[in-house]
């Protein structure tokens, strides 16, 4: 017998509180593992948001989009254009990016959702690839092609003069939130750990927490339940008086808007938008993040995003001398052997480790890391369950 029930509002509230604390203290507790520096915690927050949004579509409705990077790209381009035309304040950039990417998602979703299963996946993939190819070449006047779209001193930035006096001619073009530079970093020392608290990160973290809160509301709401109904049995939904198309389209647009927001935040922290953000591997990456962490769970996608980004930025930077530093405690005769084995998996071999991780997780932890961890926990505590309900919302 399998019992599942949604956590109550109190559990959710304490979860959210815990989550907020965990996110806000990321620069502190990630510092010891070398991941507490501004760029990476920003990436954790941004890709966590991207994956969370994607999960609203994929985790709830089961529609596997292979083109969500397109919305990330659209959000990025919109944000940079907002910087160029309106000024370096991130607020209009973020809002415009959400609106634009939602409109894009509405158009692409309206067409793609006429099909299901792999046909849907390929339609979204095709749209995203077209966006990428065009942005890279023909649309260069809008996207600045391979080099990427940047803000230039000569851009109008009409609001900059009004709101702040920061960007006088020749000064660096840094996004500025009502007087706070998004690159501003406070360095301090907490419990003996050097910590970098970055304004841009907290800007992103705000949206991550807000985005997670909205996702949680959606998961717990009748709307979310309807989406899970679509995933489980679309036929039954139709005969239950539910018009499934607008439901899936709404989920698609919401997740597209999340992607657009994530794209805008990438530019808020670093005002450059490149076409390769829309390449199919970028779409694939978010799919992998969500599945790795656990589709349909609230925290899984964020975990998946964190792991992949950590691998990409930290594991890839290991080289022989870093390894030597870390393994200094080993006796001389073992050191060389261990290092030569390990160096296959780090530095230029980080892809290999990532590939192995994917396989290990799927083989041994079906349903992703969160589901896997839960079933292991259940086994350890003796509360054995025979079947896993992977569709069930976790936490």
């Amino acid at each position, binding site marked *: *017998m*399998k*019992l*599942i*029930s*949604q956590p*109550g*509002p109190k559990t959710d509230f304490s979860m959210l509180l815990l989550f907020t604390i965990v996110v806000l203290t990321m620069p502190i507790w990630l510092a010891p593992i070398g991941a507490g520096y501004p760029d990476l915690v920003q990436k954790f927050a941004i890709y966590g948001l991207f994956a969370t949004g994607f999960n609203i579509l994929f985790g709830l409705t089961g529609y596997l989009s292979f083109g969500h990077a397109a919305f990330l790209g659209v959000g990025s381009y919109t944000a940079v254009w907002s910087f160029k035309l309106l000024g370096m304040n991130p607020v209009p950039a973020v809002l415009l990016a959400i609106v634009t990417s939602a409109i894009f998602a509405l158009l692409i979703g309206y067409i793609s959702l006429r099909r299901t299963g792999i046909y849907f996946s390929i339609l979204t993939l095709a749209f995203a690839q077209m966006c990428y190819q065009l942005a890279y070449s023909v649309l260069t006047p809008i996207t600045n092609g391979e080099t990427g779209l940047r803000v230039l001193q000569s851009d109008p930035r009409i609001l900059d003069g009004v709101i702040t006096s920061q960007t006088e001619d020749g000064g660096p073009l840094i996004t500025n939130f009502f007087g706070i530079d998004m690159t501003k970093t406070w360095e301090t020392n907490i419990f003996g750990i050097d910590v970098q608290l970055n304004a841009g990160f907290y800007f992103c973290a705000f949206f991550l927490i807000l985005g997670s809160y*909205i996702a949680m*509301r*959606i998961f*717990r*709401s*009748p*709307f*979310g*339940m*309807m989406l*899970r*109904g679509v*995933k*489980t*049995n679309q*036929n*039954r*939904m*139709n*005969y*239950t*008086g*539910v*018009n*499934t198309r*607008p*439901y899936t389209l*709404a989920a698609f647009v919401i997740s597209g808007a999340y992607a657009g927001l994530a794209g805008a935040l990438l530019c808020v922290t670093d005002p450059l938008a490149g076409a390769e953000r829309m390449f199919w591997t970028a779409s694939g990456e978010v799919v992998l993040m969500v599945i790795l962490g656990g589709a349909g769970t609230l925290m899984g996608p964020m975990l998946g995003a964190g792991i992949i980004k950590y691998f990409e930025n930290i594991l890839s930077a290991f080289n022989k001398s870093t390894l030597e530093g870390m393994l200094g405690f080993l006796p001389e005769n073992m050191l060389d052997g261990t290092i030569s084995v390990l160096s296959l998996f780090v530095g230029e071999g980080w892809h290999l480790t990532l590939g192995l991780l994917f396989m290990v997780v799927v083989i041994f932890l079906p349903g992703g890391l969160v589901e896997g961890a839960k079933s292991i926990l259940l086994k350890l505590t003796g509360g054995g369950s025979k*079947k896993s*309900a*992977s*569709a*069930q919302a976790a936490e």
Partner: protein
Amino acid sequence: MAILQVRGVSKRFGGLQALNDVNLSVEEGHVHAIIGPNGAGKSTLLNCFVGKLDPDTGTVMFDGKSLLGIKPYEINQIGVSRVFQTPEIFADLTLLENVLIPSFAKRDGGFKVNWWPRVDRERVVRDHAESVLEEIGLYDKRDEVAGSLSRGDKRRLEMAMCLSQDPKLLLLDEPTAGMSRADTNATIDLLKRVGEARGITKIVIEHDMHVVFSLADKISVLAQGTVIAENTPELIKGDPRVQEAYLGGPQE
């Protein structure tokens, strides 16, 4: 008063005349059984009521509105629910959620982005869903995953899902197919009980004569796409045309 009026419905699939000038009239509050040999067109006819198929000719009027040319979800929204031959439930969700979804669909209509309130705070809908589960005898299992139920329970769950919408018309496609005698009797009792309590009109497609004669107020006999008889169970039993077409000659 007839709640469902079927007039001159015909449907052709390629060379096969599946339905041929079918006329049917279902009285409000009645249990109307449609019987007939395999291939007589029973399922095709049912599909014409729920928006899955549109007949080539003819009209289907429900409660004064035409059911033709509108989508299944719209038909459901005006009060027609359907129980399938093989139970169509949300296998990955809990029993309670299975009943909540139709309840919300009834309340919120075909589409509503109702994303803010929590399901567990929607007291009214929840209480309603729980009471339906209680009524149908599945309340104790409300937090189990529906996919793990027995076949009989799945069928009962599906009925609960339909009943939670308070339909005006309930379509049952072989509700006891593959059930044991005991389960069949339980189902008959259930249908009688909830039907009478709520006064729901039902159309039952059934092979099992025991079920048909225990439930039906009226019976239509379909053979080769045509209604060859329509009458009360007693009279149908004695109708030689029916016996010939359906039972292959006079019985006993």
